């Protein structure tokens, strides 16, 4: 102690400053890179939300305070997009999860040719989203695609029409494409979690007399719960921002029936070229997603603490 204090006093000031700043100097390159790459665009984007930025108007660019947000409060199209986003995200995530779980449970059982089937199942994941959107748009097109005819034959459609142009049904088109495209993600992660469950627990349960449903509820589900929570969180945030399929398949139409917030931002920015307003919408979406994530993380924490 005394020795340390002594040597401390004896060092010249420059040396002491150099010593104190040493850790910061080491970490500076990484920090500067992270701030440059992540924070600068974020701050710039946020600043747009408070400025009047229209690409075709050379006199724009001034600070306008909360004007964009006031306009947003009156914007019926935005609120419709918000409702559509809920619908699009909820249905997509739910169906992707359910089918992904079923697929993972099937793939967890040993059967001949399982390796091949596993590889095939994960194929949609490798298809670029624009290609997937185009494919599904064609599948729903009664002129070249079989789906309208099949749906008609099953009695689900009155006539073999394109559901993408039916305001009541259009949203189901991108949702179907999204579910097809996103199942592998859930299947892969849930399968990995399933395979980590010790087999002798199932054996103990079968000796205890548990049937398949009880085994699923008492062993499989508790083991999967943390994975389910985190994958659903990730996918929800991701899908609510995911406008590719909608832009390709319906472009938000008909009559804005498939317009979600993300595609609405895209429309505002790249069709109307109003970057300021688009940034304001994006900021609102960001805040909503942050709140959602925070809630899920809190929920998970309390669940883990209880467990």
């Amino acid at each position, binding site marked *: 102690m005394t020795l340390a204090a002594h040597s401390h006093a004896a060092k010249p000031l420059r040396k002491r400053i150099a010593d104190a700043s040493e850790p910061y100097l080491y970490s500076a390159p990484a920090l500067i890179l992270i701030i440059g790459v992540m924070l600068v665009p974020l701050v710039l984007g946020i600043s747009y939300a408070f400025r009047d930025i229209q690409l075709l108007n050379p006199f724009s660019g001034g600070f306008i305070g909360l004007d964009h947000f006031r306009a947003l409060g009156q914007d019926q199209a935005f609120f419709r997009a918000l409702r559509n986003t809920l619908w699009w995200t909820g249905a997509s995530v739910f169906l992707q999860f359910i089918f992904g779980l079923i697929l993972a449970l099937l793939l967890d059982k040993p059967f001949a040719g399982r390796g091949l089937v596993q590889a095939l199942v994960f194929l949609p994941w490798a298809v670029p989203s624009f290609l997937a959107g185009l494919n599904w748009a064609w599948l729903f097109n009664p002129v070249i695609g079989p789906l309208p005819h099949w749906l008609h034959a099953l009695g689900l459609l009155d006539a073999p029409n394109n559901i993408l142009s039916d305001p009541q049904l259009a949203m189901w088109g991108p949702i179907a494409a999204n579910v097809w495209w996103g199942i592998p993600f859930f299947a892969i992660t849930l399968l990995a979690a399933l395979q980590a469950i*010790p087999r*002798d627990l199932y*054996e*103990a349960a*079968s000796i*205890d*007399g548990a049937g398949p449903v009880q085994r699923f509820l008492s062993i499989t589900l*508790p083991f999967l719960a943390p994975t389910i929570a985190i994958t659903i969180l990730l996918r929800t945030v991701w899908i609510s921002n995911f406008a590719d399929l909608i832009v390709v398949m319906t472009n938000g139409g008909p009559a804005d029936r498939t317009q979600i917030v993300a595609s609405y931002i895209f429309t505002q920015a790249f069709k109307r070229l109003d970057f300021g307003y688009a940034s304001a919408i994006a900021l609102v979406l960001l805040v909503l997603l942050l709140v959602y994530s925070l809630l899920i993380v809190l929920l998970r924490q309390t669940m883990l603490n209880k467990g």
Partner: protein
Amino acid sequence: MASIDIQSIRKSFGAFPVLHGVDLTIQDGEFIVLVGPSGCGKSTLLRMIAGLERISGGDLLIGGQRMNDVPPAQRGIAMVFQSYALYPHMTVRQNMEFALQIARMPKAEIDKAVENAARILQLTPYLDRLPKALSGGQRQRVAIGRAIVRDPKVFLFDEPLSNLDAALRVATRIEIAQLKEAMPDRTMIYVTHDQVEAMTLASRIVVLARKGIAQVGTPLELYERPVDEFVAQFIGSPAMNLLAGEIIATGAETVVRLDGGGTARSAVPTQTSDMGRKVNIGVRPEDLLAVSGDGLFSGEVQIVEALGEVTQLYVARPGGGAHIIAKLPGIHPDLRHKTVTFGADPAKVHLFADGRSLLYR
């Protein structure tokens, strides 16, 4: 009734045979210990009795009823796994209740059964804990408790103590022995590779060798009258010494001239037709005595292991071959590099011809 009849049961995994026809009858209330080298099919046999593994051929009868195709829960058995296999998301109480709730037992009876088991196993203070908050020994007791509450006719244990440290293993072994004493009419089948567990717990030991049963008998029967060289060397530690030789006198007592020099007397009777037969004599390390004058053989002591209560000597015979191990009571610090003559009581000298004991024929 919980007698178990195993009638020429076979098991193969795909084309790979593990058990070729096992026959075994287990009486009500027996404590059977299955021992055998690793990979010989002990767990497989136990799991077939439990119903966790399909029976490839033969019949399994529990209490006189054919059980080959009866699901595990309806066989009247309970199993304790080596890994404990506790449900990690359930408390100790919930783990023990699980089977009873599935069987739709009334709540009051469930509570009584669980509290009774918890009291026997000293788990009462831990009933509301999760398995991860328990020590290894406590987890194993919960696994045993989970078996007890179901009140099965047959308990199956697959190496239940091998994940515990030495002291805990002894304590839990004694608890299991007491448990059996408290439930004299329950049948227990216990797999282990621990000699001491086998010798102390078993009413009968079943030695499994490659693909079948080598010998069944009480612990002392196996120790004193092993049926072949495999059982002789498997039971007892260190393993029985085998020395090759030739019969030179027959009758109520047999005399064998050993290949490396020396002669051995054995109390195993032989007939005149056995004269000149090539045999192995078997002597356990603890049956060898240091003698002055004539003995079985003399050799140089090369390694001395002083264990305190006994001293193990590794002795090289003049003719070469594997070390002979002798276990002398007490401490012998001065024997290293000495040449010692060893003898044995003829009653303790076994005779094997072609691997089989000449006691049985």
